[in-house]
């Protein structure tokens, strides 16, 4: 049986948890990049067929248990969805968008998705991000920025958690940064 691993397989997340700060890694999502300009001919129909509503700048539509669509740029959206639905979705999307100027790219192995929570979460973010997350990262908003020196996508879809998405190869570095910057809360 093929062994499935995440970027932070085996990392001790309990060692980071403490007084008002917790981190966990999400295991069961697939990540699909959709490149399309909203005004592309035929796009609207195809996207409706796929059940996708494109969000506006820095916006999010949908939900994690179906398809969470995040705006990354005027022609780039990141779709997070249950891993079990990923292959079927890619197939459907390619079929629906056939002949339309768009790209569907499986990037499921490309990321580590971390869930941060606790009362000190914005202090940990402030030590690593120049972006004022506590003020501007409202629910339903996604930003691309730097986390320490790694490119990151950060978003909020509920009141309690901040999602931090980094490239697979940077995940260990980000884990270390989280460990260092949350030390005083343990």
């Amino acid at each position: 049986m093929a062994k499935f691993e995440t970027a932070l397989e085996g990392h001790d997340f309990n060692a980071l948890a403490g007084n008002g700060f917790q981190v966990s890694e999400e295991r069961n999502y697939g990540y699909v990049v959709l490149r399309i300009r909203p005004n592309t001919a035929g796009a609207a129909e195809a996207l409706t067929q796929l059940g996708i509503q494109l969000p506006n700048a820095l916006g999010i539509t949908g939900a994690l248990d179906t398809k969470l669509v995040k705006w990354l740029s005027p022609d780039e959206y990141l779709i997070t969805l249950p891993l079990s639905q990923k292959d079927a979705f890619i197939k459907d999307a390619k079929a629906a968008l056939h002949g339309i100027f768009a790209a569907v790219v499986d990037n499921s192995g490309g990321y580590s998705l971390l869930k941060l929570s606790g009362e000190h979460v914005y202090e940990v973010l402030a030590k690593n991000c120049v972006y004022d997350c506590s003020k501007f990262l409202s629910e339903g908003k996604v930003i691309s920025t730097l986390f320490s020196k790694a490119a990151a996508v950060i978003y909020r879809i509920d009141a309690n958690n901040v999602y931090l998405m980094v490239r697979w190869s940077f995940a260990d570095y980000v884990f270390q940064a989280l460990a260092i910057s949350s030390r005083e809360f343990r």
Partner: protein
Amino acid sequence: MKRLYKQANERIDRSKEIHFSWQGAHYTGYAGDTLASALLANGVKLVGRSFKYGRQRGIMAAGVEEPNALVILEPETGYHVPNARATEVEIYPDLVAKAASGIPSINEDLRAWLKPFHRFMAAGFYYKTFMSPALLWPKYEEQLRKLAGFATAPNKPDAETYDHYNQHTDVAVIGGGAAGLAAALAAANAGSKVLLLDERAQLGGELVVDAGRDPAAQAWFNQTYAALEAHANVKILVRTTAYALHDYNLVLALERRQDHVTIGARNPHQSRQRLHRIRANKVVLATGSHERPLMFANNDLPGVMLASAVSRYQYEYSVLCGSKPLVVGNNDSIYEVARDLVKAGTRPTVVDCRMGYDASDLTKLGVLVKQGYTIVKAEGRTSVERALIAKTAYSDSHGWVVGDAPETIACDLIACSGGFSPLVHLDCHTGSKPWFSKDYQAFMPACDKPHRYVAGSVNGHSDWQGAAAEGEYVGLLAAGQAANPVNAPKLLNVADFICPDVGRDKVFLDMQNDVKASDIELAILENYRSIEHIKRYTALGFGTDQGKTGNVNGIAVAAKVMNLPIEAVGTTTFRPMYTPVTMGVLAGSEIGLHSDPQRFTPMQASHRAKGAEFEVVGQWMRPWYFPQGSEDMHQAVARECLAVRNNLGMMDASTLGKIDIQGPDARELLARVYTNAWAKLAPGKCRYGLMCDETGMIIDDGVTACISDTHFLMTTTTGGAARIYNHLETWLQTEWPDLKVYITSVTDHWSTTAVVGPKARRLMEKLCKDVDCSAANFPFMDWREGTVCGVPARIMRISFSGELSYEINVQANYGRFIWESVMEAGKEFNITPYGTESMHVLRAEKGYVIVGQDTDGSITPYDANMAWAVSLNKPYPFLGQRALTRSDTARPGRKQLVGLLTDDPHKVLNEGCQLVAEIGSKAMIGHVTSSYFSPVLGRSIAMAVVKGGLDLMGTKIYAKPLSYEVIPLTIVDSVFYDQGKEKIDGEI
């Protein structure tokens, strides 16, 4: 003891005695003391020796401007702090401190013995004296270095940690004195989020002195402070120095979080210091001002202090700095200090260069007030014993003229004031120039940048009420509210600078760097005119205090000598940092292995378990080689290379950049960015591509697979991935926005296990049942979609070694599983994992270039002997095509890539080694780019770029390494192994 009875608002806690060590002896102070106040309270006058002359120095100030009292904290430990200012150090139990100067000690300084020669050691002394012969300079330098500088550097690793913190606020208020407090409260009450910073442990600034004189000041402080503390909009950071103000109101501030805590009691989970990176919509500079000392002979003698500092020690720490004080100055503030000293039970003498101030209240109390006099010299053996004063006369044409019949006044303290210098530093960091106020005799902040305000004594206010009123006003403005303008500052009545007649007397300007008034005169005599040059020639303001007390006096002296108005001389440039900042806090947590991201492939855990040695490529940690037993690198590499050539190897190729290219114009994009042709590459096929920039030089290479007519997967070099992605995006977005193509980085999505060697097919047949891996049906440079060990995979038959090779690409989540499955299945073939070093050897044996090693940004495809990869007939000329026919790019004699074989097959050249045409020649004709010992050939091989090298096949040339050897060698074709490409299909 010089400690007074309890002063009304003192900030020491007499219930908490603190024991500390200074110069090896034990002392006692109170909680709330600085090291300076505690030493003064203990009667310690001598705290240091001067930089150049080894003169005795005492504490002069009560804040960051202190030039003399540099100390080492916790010497020889992991907590060693060099050159701390005693005036800033909060004492804590068991603090160990010692003077940062003194050779060998502050009581006996060698440099002082050189006194007879001091008059020859004026500005420029070192340049002039040790100029020739030039060859001896290193010898001189070695000796001079021993005499120079202050504290010793730490000799142990720093035991503490540091961090960075990004702050965002509506209004940042810098300085917690009357103006800053009022500004913060006004802005907060108006609804703004406010960050208030102050460098001291407690807010209040100079209010602590005002409070000693006027209970209303203390009441106002208590009320304002309580309101700020309780205010939801206000965040207060004490012990925090705003040391730089950059564009767009970026304030950098250093917070000392644990410096005031006993070593053993510091929290190891917290940083010692924190760098706050503050973005503020508005900045209020309430930075205050520093007093200037007077210029007179021996003005560096211990016991000469700034007048305001004397009051500060009295009210904040209840320390009396002298029992027989002389207060002298050119402005009204000295009378307030005299009244303070009367209250402390002394009978000071007051000397004022001006006439006319009504000091009857003091004279009634028996205080001697000498108006129309100034000090000309301080005398005393180890500290002040008496002062010489002389009559003054002022004229508009000549300024102050001081008489030459001095009178003597006995005293043990000279509290002097030459006026005040507003702290314009931060305002100037973004390029503003201060302006000179004749009325206030000071350089004032221009405050001409948007979203910035100044308030308080930095703007000339001499009274706390005026400062507070202005603070409130700018606080409202900063919060975007209308406010009624406040009165113009109540300026202190200050007379012009009293510049000494420069003779042989030692009148110090910059105490820390031993710069005297006569040095300024000498610099001007030697024709230096710009104050920036005078500064550099004399070292005025070059110390760790950056001339806070000395610079403006130096400018005044320069103006007098050049007979120019002060404003015509101007100031030197104020640059960050305002006060010294530790290297630790600048680095923050980005130290050691965390100083730069380390990127790992999904196979990392396996590599580590296998005992791989790692090499950093870009930011990636790649296995370098996999040593077995006691093998060194050469033994391991030889074993790995032979395994690949004769049997089977495997390599982690996951780090290569991968870019997904989709759209109707995908093929066109490839044709434009690569030098070769792409029109006919069919789905299922791969092609090697060579990429140039517009200068025609090679910038990258890699294999691109055609997935479909509108879908390609490009690979880039490991180190070039981000750069090439940006390169493509830039061209697509700027020059070719009409091309219908999307590019997406999928570097991290795919993990790649390369199976390499004659037996590779046999292994593949074991692991992959749905792809026909036969040479006929899966030829070189094809790719197939299939399943490996049950995991969907893209398998590419590409090779960087010349051997049969399959690169298995799977989603990263299965990367380690596939790697370990290959390892397990390969046991029967004795499969050998290999690293980047063997990869380099194997590719060099085949003459494959590595972009960035064999090319260096000056190599065209023709130079690299890769004309076969250049297609000049494409509809849209590829990037760099035009450059290939430029006269310089097309000229003969360019350096071209060739192979080299040394006459001695065991001689391995150094990479970078220079090449010459004849033994005796010094004219370089090229250099070695790659060099290895080839295990399969049993001899050394090298690649090199040589002028006109492609026409010199078989020519004997020579390598000249740094060792002065001359190594004979022959230019050959760069393909050393398997020229017939017979191995590419492996075992049939």
